[in-house]
C-alpha cells in the first residue's frame, strides 16, 4: 500500500496536500465548506444587526451591499455546494461498494481548484473591493460604467474558477456512478442518496455552461470593451438574466437534491423501514431535475416578458411542485408504521421535511406571476428561499453530518448536545425567517441597508435579528460537540444506527481501500438484507467472506500526486493575471499547460512497462 507508506514518511501535511483518497478529499471539502459557512454566517449576522433598528448606522451602504453579495455567493458556492460535494466524495463510493471514484486525481484537482476559486472571490475583501453586485450580478449594473472598481472582477473570475471545479467533479461522479457500482447494484438498487447525487451531477454539467457563457460575455464587456449587455449600444441586460437564471434555477436543485437524498437515507434507518415508494421518489427527483431547466423565467416575472411567457413559466413552475410534494408525502409514508428512534440525525431530517414544506408552499404563491409582482424582491422571497435552502438544504446536510459523522470519525457525536443544536437551530431559524414573510407583505424590499422608522418594519426586524443570534448560538453548540467528541467520544463501531446500506458494513472510519472484499448487491437496503432478510420471510443475503491478508495486499490504491495542487495553483496564477498584468496571464497560461501535460503523463508508461 504505497498510500499509507507515503503518509508516514512525508509528513501529515504533505499527505493531505497530495492525497487522492476520496475520503480525505471529502473531509477537505467538508471542513472548507464549514469554514466558509461560518464566514457566510458572520456576514449574515452583521446584516441582521444593521437591520435590527431603522436608520441604523452599524455599517455603511457600500459595506452592506458587499455583505449581502458575499453572503449569497458564499453560502451557495462555498458552503452548501462543497458540503454536498464532501458527501459525494466521502459517501458515494462507500454507498455503491467502490474503492474510490473513477478519476481520483481529477477529484483532487476539483477540490484544489474549488479552494483557489473560493479564496479568489474572498480576496476582494483584502483589497477593499469586495464584490458588491449581488450574488446574481445583474447587468448592466455590473458594467465598467456603473461598477468601475475590481469588485465585480473578483466575483466574475472567482465564479469561473469554481465552475471548472464543478464541471470536473460532475463528470467524475457521473462516470463513477455509472461504472463503479458493485456487482448486482442495478440502477434501481442504488441507494437514494446516490440517485439524488446522480441527478445533481447532470444538473451541474448542464447548468454551469450557461453561467460560464454569461460570465465570459461579461468578462469581454469588462476587459475588452464589447457591449453584450450594454443597452445604449443595442446590447441587452436581460440577456444576462436569462443566461444567469437558466443556470440559477437548476442551481437551486443542485443545492437541494443532495439534501433530499440524505433525508431519504436517514428516515428509513431511524424508522427501521425501507423508503416508502422509492421508485416514486427517484422519478420525482429526475422530474425535478428535468423541469428545473424549464422554469428559469419565474425569477423574471417583473421584467415585462408579456402575458404568454408569464403564463407558460407559471404553469411550468407549478408543475415542478408536483414531484416535490410527492417526495414529502413519501417521506411521511416512510415514517408511517415505523418504529421511530429520535436520534439527532433523524431530528434534522424531520426539521428538513417540516421547514422545506413551508418553503415549498410559499413558493407556490410566487409561482403565480400576479402575486409574484407583489412578492419578488421583497423579504417574503427572502423568507421563502431561506426556508428552502436553510430549512431544506442546511437541515438536510446537518442531518447527514450527524448521520455519517461516526462513519467518518469513528466516534459518535454527543446526543444531548446534538439535540440542543437541533432545537436551538429550529427555534432560531423560525424566529429569524418566519417574520420575514410579514416584512415582505408589508413592503420591505430586499437588499436595503436601511429603512425609515415610520414603516412599521422595526418590530419584526428586531425579532428576526434576535432569531439569527439564536442560530449562531446553535452552531456554537455544534462546534463544542465536535471538539468534545473528536477524541473522547463514544467509539461508534461499524454500524451505530442499525444502518441499511453498504457503508455500515465496513469499519468506522473505513480503511483506505474501503471494501476488503467487493460486495455483491441484491437490494437497495443491501446491508439490512444481510442482517435481517427482506422482511417478507426471505432469508438474509450472504455476507462477503472474511478478507485474508493476501486479499488486502492485492488491492491497488492510487498513489498520491502533487500535480492536482500544482495545476490548481497555475490556474490561479493565470486567472489572477487578468487583474495584474498580461505577462502574468502568459506565464500562468504556460505554467497551466505544462502542469496539464505532467498531470496527464504522470502514470503513463511505455507499452513494454509493467502497468497495473
Amino acid at each position, binding site marked *: 500500500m504505497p498510500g499509507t507508506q507515503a503518509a508516514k514518511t512525508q509528513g501529515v501535511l504533505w499527505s493531505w496536500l497530495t492525497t487522492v483518497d476520496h475520503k480525505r478529499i471529502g473531509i477537505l471539502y467538508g471542513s472548507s465548506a464549514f469554514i466558509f459557512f461560518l464566514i457566510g454566517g458572520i456576514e449574515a449576522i452583521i446584516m441582521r444587526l444593521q437591520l435590527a433598528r431603522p436608520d441604523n448606522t452599524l455599517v455603511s451602504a457600500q459595506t452592506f451591499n458587499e455583505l449581502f453579495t458575499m453572503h449569497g455567493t458564499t453560502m451557495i458556492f462555498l458552503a452548501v455546494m462543497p458540503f454536498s460535494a464532501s458527501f459525494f466524495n466521502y459517501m458515494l463510493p462507500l454507498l455503491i461498494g467502490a474503492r474510490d471514484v473513477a478519476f481520483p486525481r481529477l477529484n483532487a484537482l476539483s477540490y484544489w481548484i474549488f479552494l483557489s476559486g473560493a479564496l479568489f472571490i474572498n480576496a476582494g475583501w483584502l483589497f477593499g473591493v469586495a464584490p458588491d453586485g449581488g450574488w446574481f450580478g445583474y447587468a448592466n449594473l455590473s458594467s465598467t460604467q*456603473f461598477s468601475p472598481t475590481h469588485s465585480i472582477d473578483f466575483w466574475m473570475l472567482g465564479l469561473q474558477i469554481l465552475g471548472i471545479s464543478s464541471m470536473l467533479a460532475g463528470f467524475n461522479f457521473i462516470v463513477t456512478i455509472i461504472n463503479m457500482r458493485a456487482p448486482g447494484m442495478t440502477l434501481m438498487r442504488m441507494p437514494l442518496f446516490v440517485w439524488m447525487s446522480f441527478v445533481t451531477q447532470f444538473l451541474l454539467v448542464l447548468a454551469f455552461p450557461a453561467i460560464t457563457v454569461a460570465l465570459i460575455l461579461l468578462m469581454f464587456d469588462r476587459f475588452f470593451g464589447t457591449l453584450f449587455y450594454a443597452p445604449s449600444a443595442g446590447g441587452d441586460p436581460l440577456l444576462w438574466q436569462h443566461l444567469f437564471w437558466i443556470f440559477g434555477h437548476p442551481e437551486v436543485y443542485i443545492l437541494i437534491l443532495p439534501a433530499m437524498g440524505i433525508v431519504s437515507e436517514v428516515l428509513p434507518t431511524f424508522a427501521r423501514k425501507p423508503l416508502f415508494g422509492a421508485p416514486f421518489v427517484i422519478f420525482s427527483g429526475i422530474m425535478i431535475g428535468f423541469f428545473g431547466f424549464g422554469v428559469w423565467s419565474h425569477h423574471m416575472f417583473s421584467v415585462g416578458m408579456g402575458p404568454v411567457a408569464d403564463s407558460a413559466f407559471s404553469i411550468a413552475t407549478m408543475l415542478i411542485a408536483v414531484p416535490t410534494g410527492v417526495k414529502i408525502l413519501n417521506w411521511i409514508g416512510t415514517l408511517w408504521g415505523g418504529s421511530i428512534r429520535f436520534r439527532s440525525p433523524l431530528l434534522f431530517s424531520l426539521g428538513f421535511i417540516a421547514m422545506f414544506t413551508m418553503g415549498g408552499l410559499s413558493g407556490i404563491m410566487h409561482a403565480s406571476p*400576479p402575486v409574484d409582482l407583489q412578492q419578488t424582491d421583497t423579504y417574503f422571497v427572502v423568507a421563502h428561499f431561506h426556508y428552502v435552502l436553510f430549512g431544506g438544504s442546511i437541515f438536510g446536510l446537518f442531518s447527514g453530518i450527524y448521520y455519517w459523522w461516526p462513519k467518518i470519525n469513528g466516534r459518535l457525536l454527543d446526543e444531548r448536545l446534538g439535540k440542543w443544536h437541533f432545537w436551538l437551530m429550529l427555534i432560531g431559524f423560525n424566529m429569524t425567517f418566519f417574520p420575514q414573510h410579514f416584512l415582505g407583505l408589508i413592503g420591505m424590499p430586499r437588499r436595503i441597508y436601511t429603512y425609515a422608522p415610520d414603516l412599521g418594519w422595526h418590530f419584526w426586524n428586531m425579532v428576526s435579528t434576535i432569531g439569527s443570534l439564536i442560530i449562531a448560538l446553535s452552531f456554537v453548540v455544534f462546534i463544542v460537540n465536535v471538539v468534545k467528541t473528536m477524541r473522547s467520544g463514544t467509539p461508534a463501531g461499524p454500524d451505530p444506527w442499525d444502518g441499511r446500506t453498504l457503508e455500515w458494513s465496513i469499519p468506522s472510519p473505513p480503511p483506505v481501500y474501503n471494501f476488503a472484499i467487493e460486495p455483491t448487491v441484491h437490494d437497495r437496503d443491501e446491508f439490512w438484507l444481510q442482517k435481517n432478510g427482506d422482511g*417478507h420471510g426471505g432469508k438474509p443475503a450472504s455476507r462477503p467472506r472474511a478478507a485474508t491478508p493476501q486479499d488486502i495486499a492485492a488491492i491497488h490504491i492510487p498513489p498520491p500526486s502533487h500535480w492536482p495542487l500544482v495545476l490548481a495553483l497555475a490556474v490561479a496564477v493565470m486567472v489572477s493575471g487578468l487583474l495584474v498584468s498580461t505577462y502574468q496571464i502568459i506565464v500562468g497560461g504556460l505554467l497551466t499547460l505544462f502542469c496539464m501535460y505532467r498531470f496527464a503523463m504522470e502514470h503513463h508508461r511505455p507499452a513494454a512497462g509493467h502497468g497495473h
Partner: protein
Amino acid sequence: MGLRGPSRGEESQTATMPRRFVSPSRVRAVLLVLGVLVLATSCGWSLWDSPMTTVRPRSDFGRWIDDIFMLISWTTLVIFVAVEGGLLYCCWRFRDRPGAPTPRQIHGHTPLEISWTVAFAVVLLILGIPTIRIIFKTQEAPAATDLRVDVAGHQWWWEFKYPGLNVTTANEVHLPVGQTVAFHLQAPDVIHSFWIPALGGKRDVVPHRVNRLIMTPEAPGEYYGQCAEYCGTSHANMRFRAIVHPKGEFEQWVKAQQAPPVESTDALAQQGKEIFGKSACVGCHTIAGVSAGVIGPNLTHFASRRTFAGSLMQTTPENLIKWIENPDHMKPGALMPNLGMTGDKSKALAAYLLSLK
C-alpha cells in the same frame, strides 16, 4: 392497504406506561408558548397597516393580486396543516417503544402514490386558472383615455413626466382617484423596479425598454413607493410617494405645477437664485426660466414637494442645507457632487429652493 402500524395488542401495552405528554410542566410550557404567541401577534396586529402594505390594496390591480394571494394562501394553509399535522402524528404515533418488534418492511403503495400525485396536480390547476386570467387582464394595452405618466428610474431618484399635461416632477407622483393611469417605465442608467405596494405589483424599469404598469387607484391617500431592484450603492434610498387626490384636487395640483414659479422678494432667496445661476447647479437641474439641466430632478416647484432626494428627507430648511453641504453623507454614492457650498451659500440656496412653491 399494508399501511397499518403496530397491532392493537402493542397499543394496549403502551397505554399502561406513564403519559408523559400531559405532565403539569408540559402544560405550563404550552401555555407559555401560547402566551408569547398571543403577545407577538397583538404586537403585530396593526401589522398590515404599514404605508407600504401589500395586503390592504387601494387599486383594482392590487385587489386582483390580493384575491389570488388569498386563494393560494388558504389552499396552502390547508395543505400545510395536513402535512405538518401528518408529520407530527407519525412522530407521536410511531415513536419507538421499548421492546417493539421490527416494523413491517413496506416498500410502497402504488395506487396511493398515484392518487396523491394526481391530487397535487389538480390543486395546482385550481390555482393556475385564475392566475392566468389575471396575468392577461393586468397586461392589456392602455386605453386612450388613461392618464399617461412617464416614469424614469435614475440612480437614485424617480422622475415623473405627464406628457399630456406638460408637467415634470420628481419623487412624488400625483394621481387622481378613480382615473386609470398608465405608467410608462424607462431607465436611463441601470435596471430599477417601480413599486407602490398599496397600489399593486411592481414592474422592472429596464434600460432601452418601455415597460407598462396600468392601474386605477381607488382611495385617496399618500402611499409609499420604493425601488425594488438592486441598483447600486443607494438602492435603499431610492424611495418615492404616490399621492392619490380626491376628485378636483388633482386638477389644482396640475395647474400649480404648470404655472411658472413665483419670484420671491426675500433677499436671501434672491441671493440664492444668483448663486444657483452662477454655479454648476444649472448643469443638471431645470428651474423654469432659470436653467435647463436634465441630469438631476426638475426643481421648478421644489417647495411643493413634501420630501426630496429620493424621498429620503422631509422638505425642511435644515435637511436641505445638510443635503446641499454634503449630498454623499445623506445619500451614499449620490451623483450630486459636493460643490463646496457652505455657510451663507447653502443657507441662501436653501431659501431660494424653498421659495419655489
